[in-house]
C-alpha cells in the first residue's frame, strides 16, 4: 500500500497553496460584502490552470484526475473561509469532468476554452422547486426538434446563476425527454444562460457570499443537437458521475475548512487566558480539539480514498457501486463533523466568535450548505444503505 502523492501532485499542492495564501486569503472576507469573486482572482485561477482542470488539454484544460482535483480543493478551502472560491472551483471541476467525458467535440470547443480562461461559468442545474433529492419528480421538459431541442421548465437553488447569466456560460442541465419512462427517460444537456427565454431569479442564502445562488425559468429555449451530453434518455446515470465527483471534493473541502478553523482555534486557546492559565490547558477544551482533529483527519483520508476509487473506476479498475458507496461514506458525516468542529472553535473564542469579524462563523455558514448541496446527507445514508442491503431494500421502489 502506497499512501503518498506523486512528486507532481506535491508541486501542484505547493503552487496552489502559495497562490491561495498570497492572493485569496487576504481578500476572502471582503467577498461577504462585494458578493462576488474579484475578477483578478478568477483570472489568476485561470492562469494557474485550476478552473475546470478536468477538461482535456485539447480544450484548454489540464486533464486532472479526481485525486489531483481533490488536492486543489483542499488548498482552496484552507484559504477561503467564505467557501465561495472552493464552490466556484468544485462545480466547474466536477461538471467539467462530465462535459469532457460525455460532451460533443463542438460543445467542448465552444465552452471549455472560455470556461478555463475564467470568462464563462459552467454550472449544474438539476434541482427544481419540487425536485431535489427525488430527481424523478423533475418537471422540466426537453423535446427534440428538427434542428436540435427545445427546453421548457424551471430550475431552483442553482449555484452560479448570476455568473453565467451576466458573464456567459451555462449549466449542465437535466430534463425529462420521455416522461413515461421516469428516471430512464431523462436527458442531460448543456444549457447556455445568455439566450432568449432564460429569466434568472436570485435567493439570499446564508453563506458562500462570493458566488450566487438562484434559479431560472426556461421558456421555449432552443438548443442545438451538439449540446446533448451523453445519449438521450441516459441523463440520470451520467449525472451521478458528476455528483460523485462533486461530493468527493465537498468532503475534502469540509475537512480542510474544519482543520483550518481548528488551526485558528489552537492559536487562540494557546494565548487566551482564563483563571490565570491559557484555556488550551483545560482538558475540557483539549479533548474536543483532539476529537475534532481526529475526525476531520479521518474525513480527509476518506475523501482521498473515495476519489482514488473514482479514478480507479475511470481506468476500469473499480466498479460503479464501489465508487458510489465510497463517495457517499465520505460525504455522509462531512458537513456535520466540520460544522461541529467550527462551532467549538467559535465557542472557544468567546464573544468574539459570534462577531462577523471572526472568520470561523463564515466558514460555518459555508460548510453548512454541504448538508444539502450536491446531494443531502440523508441521501448519502440512503446510498450506503442501498449498497449494503441491495436495491430491493430501497423503501420507495
Amino acid at each position: 500500500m502506497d499512501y503518498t502523492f506523486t512528486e507532481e501532485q506535491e508541486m501542484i499542492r505547493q503552487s496552489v497553496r502559495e497562490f491561495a495564501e498570497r492572493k485569496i486569503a487576504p481578500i476572502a472576507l471582503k467577498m461577504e460584502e462585494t458578493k462576488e469573486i474579484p475578477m483578478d482572482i478568477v483570472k489568476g485561477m485561470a492562469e494557474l490552470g485550476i478552473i475546470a482542470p478536468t477538461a482535456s488539454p485539447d480544450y484548454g484544460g489540464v486533464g486532472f484526475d479526481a485525486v489531483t482535483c481533490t488536492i486543489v480543493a483542499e488548498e482552496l478551502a484552507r484559504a477561503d473561509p467564505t467557501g465561495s472560491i472552493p464552490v466556484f472551483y468544485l462545480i466547474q471541476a466536477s461538471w467539467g469532468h462530465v462535459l469532457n467525458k460525455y460532451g460533443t467535440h463542438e460543445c467542448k470547443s465552444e465552452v471549455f476554452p472560455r470556461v478555463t480562461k475564467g470568462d464563462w461559468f459552467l454550472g449544474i442545474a438539476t434541482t427544481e422547486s419540487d425536485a431535489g433529492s427525488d430527481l424523478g419528480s423533475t418537471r422540466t421538459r426537453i423535446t427534440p426538434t428538427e434542428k436540435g431541442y427545445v427546453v421548457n421548465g424551471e430550475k431552483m437553488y442553482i449555484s452560479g446563476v448570476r455568473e453565467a447569466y451576466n458573464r456567459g456560460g451555462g449549466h449542465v442541465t437535466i430534463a425529462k425527454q420521455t416522461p413515461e419512462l421516469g428516471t430512464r427517460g431523462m436527458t442531460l444537456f448543456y444549457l447556455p444562460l445568455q439566450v432568449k427565454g432564460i429569466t434568472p431569479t436570485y435567493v439570499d442564502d446564508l453563506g458562500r457570499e462570493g458566488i450566487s445562488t438562484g434559479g431560472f425559468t426556461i421558456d421555449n429555449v432552443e438548443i442545438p443537437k451538439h449540446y446533448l451530453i451523453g445519449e438521450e434518455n441516459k441523463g440520470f446515470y451520467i449525472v451521478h458521475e458528476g455528483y460523485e465527483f462533486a461530493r468527493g471534493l465537498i468532503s475534502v473541502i469540509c475537512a480542510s475548512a474544519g482543520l483550518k478553523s481548528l488551526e485558528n482555534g489552537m492559536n487562540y486557546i494557546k494565548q487566551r487566558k482564563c483563571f490565570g492559565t491559557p484555556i488550551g490547558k483545560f482538558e475540557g477544551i483539549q479533548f474536543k480539539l483532539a476529537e475534532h482533529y481526529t475526525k476531520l483527519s479521518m474525513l480527509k483520508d476518506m475523501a482521498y480514498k473515495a476519489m482514488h476509487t473514482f479514478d480507479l473506476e475511470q481506468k476500469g479498475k473499480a466498479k460503479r457501486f464501489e465508487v458510489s458507496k465510497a463517495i457517499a461514506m465520505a460525504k455522509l458525516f462531512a458537513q456535520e463533523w466540520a460544522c461541529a468542529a467550527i462551532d467549538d472553535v467559535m465557542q472557544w473564542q468567546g464573544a468574539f466568535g459570534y462577531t462577523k469579524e471572526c472568520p470561523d462563523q463564515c466558514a460555518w455558514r459555508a460548510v453548512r450548505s454541504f448538508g444539502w448541496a450536491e446531494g443531502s446527507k440523508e441521501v448519502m445514508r440512503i446510498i450506503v444503505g442501498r449498497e449494503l442491503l441491495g436495491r430491493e431494500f430501497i423503501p420507495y421502489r
Partner: protein
Amino acid sequence: MEFVVLVKQVPDTTEVKVDPKTGTLIRDGVPSILNPFDQFALEEALRLREKIKDRIPVNVTVISMGPPQAKTAIMKCLALGADKGILLSDRTFAGADTWATSLTLAEAVKKLGKFDIVFCGQQAIDGDTAQVGPEVAQLLGIPQVTYVDSILGFENNKITVRSLTDDGYRVVEVKLPMLLTCSTPSSFEPSNPSMAAILKANKKPFEIWTAETLGGDKSKFGLSGSPTQVSRVYSPPVRGKGVVYKENIEEGIKKVVEALMDKKVI
C-alpha cells in the same frame, strides 16, 4: 546562448526555530523551499531570455548541490520555465563549507562547456554568507557584479545591470561571460508555476551528477575539501539592560539624546 542559474534548497526560515540550548536551527519538520533570492535570479534569467529570444535563442540550465530531496527545488525551476536541471548529489559533497560548495558548483558549470551568464541569488536564507556567488565567479575566472536588482540592457555580448550599494546603486556594464548575484526588489512577486507547466516540467531533461561525473581528486569536495571548521554555534547573549523613562517625558527625551550622543550614535 547559455544561462546557468545556481539554486539552493533551504529550510523555510520563516518556520525555523533556534534550539535555545545548542544555538543551532531545528530543521525537523520544517518544509524546504527554493531559496527566494534564487527564484528571483531564475525569473530574471527567464525574463531576459524572453526579451531577447527573437535575436538570440537562450538555454537556461539550473544547477543545485544538495541531497536527493533538492530535486524538488529544481523541478520548481523547470516548472517556472528553465530548460534543464542538474542536481549535484553525492555523499562525497556532504559537509562542504562555502569554499567546497563553490568549487563543486564551478566544476559543474565548467563541465557544461559553454556558459554566458551565471545567475546566483544574493545569499541563501539559511547560510546567509553571500560568498558562494563571488567564489564561483573567481573560480571560473569571470567578472562578477553582486547585488543586482535589475537588468537594464543587453547587447552584443555585453550586459548592463543595476547593482545596489550601501548608499544607493551603480549602473555597471560588463562583458560576457560573467556572473551576477541577484537582490530581490521589494516589488517582486514570485510566480506560481501553472498546472500545465508543472505537468511539462516532468518531461524536461533532469540529471544527477556525482563526484564521479565531475571527475578528478575527490578530496577537493565536501568535508575533506573544506578549509573552515565550525567549532561552535551559539546565539550571542543579550548584553546590557534597557532603561525606560516613563515619568517625565521631557526629561526622558533629553536623557535618551544625551546617551545616544555619548555613544556617538548621533
